């Protein structure tokens, strides 16, 4: 059988960073091929090459046996390759039917858009996805995430996709919706569609995939039939080094409770979250995207202030209605999206590091440039930021060094509570270990650290305690000793729900 898509020895670099090294990969018709790897392993780059967004520097891309150079996503689609993106690319102001058929709407004899045909076509496609309740005339902006995703899938099918790329499709879905999606994926496979399936959820991969390919640091590790691997062997292939090296966790003495949340809620997104955080401890929060972990952090940090419940700092109730208020209470937040929320990229390292304490550096409103420069130089040394100097622009730094700048900015505020949201997303393994070491050291100096991560190994490797969130609420808590991948993983997802609640 000819593979729908085949990559042969493909490499790709961005500047000096080689993100894909000699990777080979193929998808057969009627196959679900799972793609695994940590963040930054090269999965997105691989997907982007197949979907025509990026071009390989070296190697060959074959579509149904023919070597091609895909000039654009448009051309990839013309060859039957469709992508359901992680951030769904739909048009909120247009109707469901229009979104499905945008760019290839059925026409009448005079070339006008054939609305009745478009609507009935959309209806048929959605019906084939078991989405009978989805109205084709609704504006997409009014739909839930799960329904938007179905629209995306219908859109791919409307273009007669032979290969469907699904990037973390269940990451933002509720459990019942996720199960429904799996059914849809199986049905597509039975129709002969090839599917590249990227997911962090091991259970889904074992339930769905025919083969699995693991990438690490841009390199191809292995492609195996699903029957030949176990969860454990996959994780060790993904991580590739001993846990101790990557997660230099040191035992520290835990001090007094610094931060406490009592039944804190924000609208429907954060629901009755209670937790305590003590000096010197790293508290990990595990959970899927949309489980309320980042949202809880944003509530503690005053971006989305609590709508009910109580937050206590040092045992005293406080009101945190802005990041400035949080900062004044000694709470720091290293955000999830470094580029958008963490850094002012066109500015210098000096200006970024001083940003959160700029008023403290001012004398009579004038910024003390000498002290600012000194702070920047000290931070560069202390955090091992590799840069030409304080005046280098932040956007010229690598991901890992950028993250250190964000960390330096917040440590400059001398916080007591440090929230780190996805502390190592999108940075290479070496820098990861450095960030972990810094985190461990800071906790050792008595800082209370709240760490949020999608990467289970990171949560398990770094945390003294682990909280698991689902649907905006805390659903489980583990001590370091009890926090096994199985226990935490099943608490995060649907499968564990019944057993957990049964046990409770």
């Amino acid at each position: 059988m000819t593979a729908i898509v085949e990559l042969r020895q493909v490499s790709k670099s961005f500047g000096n960073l080689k993100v894909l090294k000699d990777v080979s990969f193929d998808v057969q018709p009627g196959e679900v091929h799972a793609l695994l790897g940590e963040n930054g392993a090269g999965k997105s780059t691989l997907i982007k090459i197949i979907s025509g967004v990026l071009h390989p520097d070296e190697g060959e891309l074959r579509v149904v046996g023919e070597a091609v150079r895909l000039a654009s996503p448009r051309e990839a689609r013309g060859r039957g390759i469709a992508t359901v993106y992680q951030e769904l690319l739909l048009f909120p102001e247009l109707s469901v039917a229009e979104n499905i058929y945008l760019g290839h709407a059925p026409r009448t004899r005079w070339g006008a858009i054939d609305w009745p045909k478009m609507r009935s076509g959309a209806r048929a496609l959605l019906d084939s996805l078991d989405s009978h309740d989805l109205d084709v005339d609704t504006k997409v902006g009014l739909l839930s995430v799960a329904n938007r995703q179905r629209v995306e899938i219908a859109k791919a099918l409307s273009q007669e996709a032979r290969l469907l790329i699904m990037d973390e499709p269940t990451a933002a879905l509720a459990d019942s919706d996720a199960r429904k999606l799996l059914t849809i994926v199986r049905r597509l496979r039975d129709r002969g569609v090839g599917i590249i399936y990227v997911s962090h959820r091991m259970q889904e991969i074992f339930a769905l995939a025919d083969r699995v390919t693991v990438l690490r640091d841009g390199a191809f590790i292995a492609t195996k039939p699903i029957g030949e691997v176990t969860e454990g062997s996959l994780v060790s292939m993904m991580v590739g080094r001993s846990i101790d090296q990557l997660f230099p966790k040191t035992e520290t003495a835990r001090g007094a409770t610094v931060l406490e949340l009592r039944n804190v809620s924000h609208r429907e997104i954060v629901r009755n979250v209670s937790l305590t955080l003590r000096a010197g401890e790293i508290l990990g929060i595990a959970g899927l995207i949309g489980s309320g972990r980042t949202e809880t952090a944003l509530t503690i940090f005053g971006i989305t202030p609590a709508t009910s419940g109580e937050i206590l700092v040092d045992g005293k109730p406080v009101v945190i209605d802005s990041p400035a208020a949080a900062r004044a209470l000694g709470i720091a937040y290293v955000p999830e999206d470094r580029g958008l929320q963490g850094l002012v990229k066109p500015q210098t390292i000096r200006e970024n590091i001083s940003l959160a304490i700029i008023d403290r550096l001012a004398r009579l409103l004038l910024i003390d440039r000498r002290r600012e420069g000194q702070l920047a130089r000290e931070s560069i040394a202390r955090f091992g930021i590799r840069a030409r100097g304080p005046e280098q622009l932040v956007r010229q730094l690598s991901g890992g060094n950028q993250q250190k700048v964000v960390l330096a900015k917040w440590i400059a505020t001398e916080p007591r509570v440090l929230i780190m949201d996805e502390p190592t997303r999108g940075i290479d393994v070496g820098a990861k270990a450095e960030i972990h070491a810094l985190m461990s050291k800071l906790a050792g100096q008595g800082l209370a650290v709240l760490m949020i991560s999608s990467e289970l190994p990171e949560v398990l490797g770094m945390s003294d305690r682990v909280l698991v969130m689902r649907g905006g609420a805390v659903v489980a808590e583990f001590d370091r000793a009890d926090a096994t991948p199985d226990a935490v993983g099943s608490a995060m997802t649907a499968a564990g729900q019944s057993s957990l609640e049964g046990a409770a």
Partner: protein
Amino acid sequence: MSFDVMQSRPSFPRRLLGFVEANGQEAIILAAIILLFVVVGVVNPRFLGNSNLTSIFSGNAYIAVAAIGMALVIISGNIDVSVGSLIGVLATIAGTLAVNGYPIIVCWLAPLAVGVAINAFVGFLVAYVRIPSIVVTLGMLSVLKGGLISATAGAWINNLPPEFMLAQFRPFGVPAPIYFMVTLTLLAALWMRYSGFGRTIYAIGGNPDAARVTGIRIERSIVCVFMIHGFFAGIAAVLFATQLQVIQSTVPPNLELTVITAAVVGGVSILGGTGTVIGSTLAAILFAAIGSALIFTNVSAYWLRAVQGLFILATVLADMARRRRLR
């Protein structure tokens, strides 16, 4: 329409909501127009007199025509603050050609061609050179306005040949501009709904990133939108140039704001991605009627612009509230 809604009982509320969502702005404006005519007509019956109605509808048709093009520009996520100057320039070109004895058809078509050409350049700067449309058109505003006044030295154009006076024709007793307004509005509305390019404009304004990944050629489409806008400005200019016996060779004061207001208040979201041209035409009529009503109710017409400003502000705030719900 309402029968349709009534028949599908189970989803009636949702459909009604959808209907209001889709056509609400148009319906509200239409109701406002009717209400205005009734109230002012009672206060001063001469308001409903033939000559006043003609002046409201026919005299402002060129604004409605220009607002169609503006609606497209705004739906695509851009703006044009130079349209008033453009219309002034194009009207003067038409008049100058007419006075110098060029064939009438040339006098009528030349403004369209020049309008398309000028706006092709504007679109090029916006789409390919990536200068924000507000800056390009702000610059164009002064280039066109200054160019017009220095070229004509403010002289009026008189002695226009009678056969040139397109706006004064009255086929079947109805002034020609009204035919233009109605036909162009309907054609544009159909085109926006049934042509692939029409839907593309909505897509670009609604989510440019997604449009790019979907394979829409954004740059080319934006240039086209500006060219179409120039075409409508050309028609508007001919109607404007031919409705009086003289052409003043100046830019009608604040025309660009009136046109933008009509498009925005007509339901075109100023952030792009949504709106219809029927709404913008209705809004143009509404403002013409308000202006006239101020006079007929002895309120000073000098308040007209303040009313326009309030309308834009109210519409924009309502639009922001609506968007918050949609995301």
